[in-house]
């Protein structure tokens, strides 16, 4: 699945705009599922797809957090009462917000709806990242956007890097006899994880600097990226989806 990087990112950007505009949980779910299948199909082409598993985990985590927040905190909504949580009375100046209390079907649905859109955006970004190595994306940027492209390169390289570091650190913690998935163990993972990612990002920036990246006016390409007919097909089919269902 060697396509022009801009074709993939353009495609994903269009879908993201569409999801935001249509404001429909069904479209959002369908699009995320389709992209997930696409990523799985193209898995042999690069190791970036591994980062998608990490994106999936983040998406699940986001879903859980958003859902539980939506159930506990919210504005009163009409609809059939599903169950009742113990309510905490807030001071009178916080009118319209409440903690706990009745959970209605309407409230649950609205929360789910918002969740689906949020998560599909995360998944679309993750899929774009998994389908196109950020390094080849950088090549398509014009020289004037040097600072932007460097930032994007370093930032996008961090995601797969994070995924690899995460599993390594988790493994190491097993070696120290720590139990899994408690909140304190999350805190313990995050510090070395952050340190390592920053260090790696700096290493990469140093290596690029030492090889003269960004100093010359004219940049040439060893393997010029070609916009092929398949890329046009890909982008226009995404456009077609958006136009038809707008």
């Amino acid at each position, binding site marked *: 699945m060697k396509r022009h990087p801009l074709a993939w990112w353009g495609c994903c950007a269009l879908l993201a705009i569409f999801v935001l505009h249509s404001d429909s949980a069904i479209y959002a779910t369908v699009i995320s599922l389709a992209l997930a299948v696409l990523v799985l199909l193209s898995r042999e082409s*690069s*190791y970036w797809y591994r980062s998608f598993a990490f994106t999936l985990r983040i998406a699940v985590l986001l879903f859980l957090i958003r859902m539980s927040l939506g159930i506990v905190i919210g504005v009163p909504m009409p609809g059939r009462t599903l169950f009742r949580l113990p309510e905490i009375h807030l001071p009178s100046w916080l009118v319209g917000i409440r903690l706990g209390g009745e959970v209605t079907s309407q409230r649950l649905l609205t929360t789910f709806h918002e969740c689906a859109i949020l998560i599909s955006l995360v998944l679309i970004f993750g899929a774009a990242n998994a389908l196109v*190595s950020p*390094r*080849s994306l950088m090549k398509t940027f014009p020289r004037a956007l040097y600072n932007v492209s460097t930032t994007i390169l370093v930032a996008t390289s961090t995601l797969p890097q994070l995924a690899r570091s995460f599993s*390594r*650190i988790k*493994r*190491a*913690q*097993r*070696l*120290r*006899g*720590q*139990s899994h998935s408690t909140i304190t163990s999350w805190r*313990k*993972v995050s*510090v*070395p994880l952050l*340190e390592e990612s920053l260090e*790696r990002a700096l*290493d*990469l920036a*140093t*290596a*690029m*600097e*030492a*090889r*003269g*990246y*960004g*100093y*010359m*006016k*004219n*940049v*040439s*390409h*060893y*393997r*010029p990226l070609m916009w092929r007919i398949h890329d046009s097909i890909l982008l226009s089919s995404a456009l077609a989806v958006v136009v038809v269902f707008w």
Partner: protein
Amino acid sequence: MISFRNVSLIYPNSLRTVLDGLSIEVNEGEMVLVIGHTGSGKSSLIKLVNGLVPHHTGGILSGEIEVAGRSTRSLKPGQLSDVVGIVGQSPAHGFVADIVEDEIAFGLEAHGVAPEVMRKRVEEVLDLLSLTELRDRSISSLSGGEQQRVAIGAALVLNPKVLLLDEPTSALDPIAAEEVLAIVYRLVHDLGLTVIIAEHRLERVIQFADRVLLINEDGSAEIGDTATMLASSPIAPPLVNLAKVLGQEKISLSVRELRRNTEELRNVLTNLQPKIAPANIGSAIFTLDNVSATYDEKSVLTNVSLAIHSGEVVALMGRNGAGKSTLLKCAVGLTPITRGEVQVCGRDPRELKGKDLISRVGYIPQEPDDLLYNQSVADECRQADLDNNVAAGTTLNIFKSLMTLPSLSVHPRDLSEGQRLGLALSIVLAAQPQLLILDEPTRGLDYEAKRELIRIVRSLARDDGSQQRHCGIFIASHDVELVAEISDRVIFLADGEILSQGSTRDVLTSSPAFAPQVTKALSPQPWLTVGEVEAALEGRNV
């Protein structure tokens, strides 16, 4: 080519002078080896040459540094990239592209070289470093030595006059290291390239170096001819120490030279035998029975059977990618085993968790950093006491018994490599494991730290009745000098299969590539270490 005039360097928030009034001239086509203890400023010196220090790292620099007539004061590293190429400590962190060919072309692209010229240059570099067959491979699928070659190629593609190498062989097995250094040596002689190289494992590089620059702890530095510098330096490879023990006046820098100069002296040794204290071996604590494992549908271990007993130190050797780490991970249940049986103290490690696991196996991964995640040494020790359910202060006491303590408020990342390894060891030992596993422990350790490690490991294996002792110790390493000093037995792994196993002496003296320097120098006599020779000679005198 490179001139330092009265250069001093201090990093911000630090009181130590890294370099103090350094003045050196390096001529074109020279190969200078930089030596010094860990953290003495070898990397800083290397990065000063192309301006990464202080432009990228910060720091206060005085004095003047010129490379090919250009001052680094006003020029940024990128502006010097056409005269200076640099290969960092871990090349894998600095790769910008996914494919070998693209990685090598990156510098040319950034400099806007015309596509036709670019193709020619890339082709030349691929040939020069014998990378032609790997050109389409993904970089992450390459072995350590191959990656190192790609990094050197990427640095050379702009035709620089100076090449800087920061510990180029620390992650490589002896054969890959030799390959990389031979290529560097050829470049110096064929192209007149100026090379500055920092390296801990002197035994691998001294024969190639023209001059040696020694950086002392206080920031002062001396430069001189390799033989004279090593004769007086506290840091010296086994070959130099052997020459001293044999009472040679002139230090030999290569095995060939030493053999030519010591024909008579060696005769004296033929009548002597190395004295070996017999290991006090207990029962088997780690056994593999016909184990096979696959990773990503590739077979990484095939029908491996072995046993490690308490009280013995066993070394696992083999080339990069032979499956050493995978085999070690069996002991903590991290390897997906497809066939066979693994037992640690009579239990399958995959079923063990938490305290049950760590009280049987202590495992130090390749990066001891992975085990450390607290904000200070004191926190780290306290955490280990809690994890292991032992009395407060136990871990700290173990640390104290292993080495001189660093300041307790220091962040683990700011410790030296040796101290970090010591801290990780203390944490692991606090659980009183019966099996201790070390994966490539000498990466980045200087000779002094290595001696310390050898002493610690030896004393852990010894049986003196205390609970802490009489461990079985299993070490994966491609540092042959370490293996010669430390182990009772060697298991040699190739492509996931056990190729040979036996006593250290039998295995190491029978393979020329994996033989320590002393063995090479004194063969066919079966000596392994300078210590043995010295003890035997002294015994004769008495």
